[in-house]
């Protein structure tokens, strides 16, 4: 018999105890399972490319890399570089469109 058969039982309750999945988590799961999250991501990606946002972010990255030297840059550096500017420079129309779609999804899942 394998030694693993006699191992102590898996401790349960440590993970689940008192932690109901939050509303956010439930919705996130619904978004993913229905495929809507993927669709929203593709829509957002497309809109951001169309309006030049992606090019702006890439230009920021390139300038930073040029300054620092391309062997001294990590993905983390770049993420921290473009996150604040990226979030701030998203055009209002795109923001509105995506928010509208997300809101309709929330309503349609009848929460």
């Amino acid at each position, binding site marked *: 018999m394998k030694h693993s058969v006699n191992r102590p039982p898996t401790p349960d309750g440590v993970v689940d105890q008192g932690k109901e999945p939050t*509303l956010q988590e439930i919705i996130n799961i619904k978004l993913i399972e229905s495929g809507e999250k993927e669709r929203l991501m593709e829509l957002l990606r497309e809109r951001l490319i169309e309006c030049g946002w992606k090019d702006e972010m890439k230009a920021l990255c390139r300038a930073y890399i040029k300054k620092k030297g391309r062997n001294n840059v990590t993905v983390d550096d770049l993420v921290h570089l473009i996150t604040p500017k990226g979030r701030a420079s998203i055009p209002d129309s795109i923001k509105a469109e995506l928010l509208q779609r997300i809101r309709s999804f929330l309503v349609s899942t009848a929460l």
Partner: protein
Amino acid sequence: MSGPNEDNTQLSSHFLGDLLDSIIVDVASECHRIAKLGLDHNLEEEEKELRLSAQARARVADPSNSGETNNKYVVDIFGRTHPSVASEIFECMNCGKSIVAGRFAPHLENCMGKGRKARRKVTRSSTAAQNRYSRGSPVSTYSPYSNSTSTNRLSNGTPVGEEYSNGTYEEP
């Protein structure tokens, strides 16, 4: 207690932020990859490399370098040395231009349609080949062989490929 509408708005913003973060990470990772793999030709280093390779190419093409101050000092059994770049000039049999022998291979790439922007050169021989294989009837208005004088006649004066001028195919 905030109303459901405000909850919805807050949740929507949260998810939008989530999506945006994922896209930002994608963009950052893509830029990082391009930088690390050296695929971005606008970085200053690349400019230096290009300048150096252009200099090297100029040195090779310089006629005063042909064989004398050469590092590859190759001597054949007759005691002759060879220039590093083949400098003979001859005529390309495809397009008829004068080509330096050392540049013949790259020239052929473009001339015969392998390289970029190279597909548009339609020469007499290619249309003639198309006509011969794809159409049954001879082309009446386009007669390349009957008009040319020097290139297509054999030594005894018989023209080659006479199917365009009178409708029959004559063996040379």
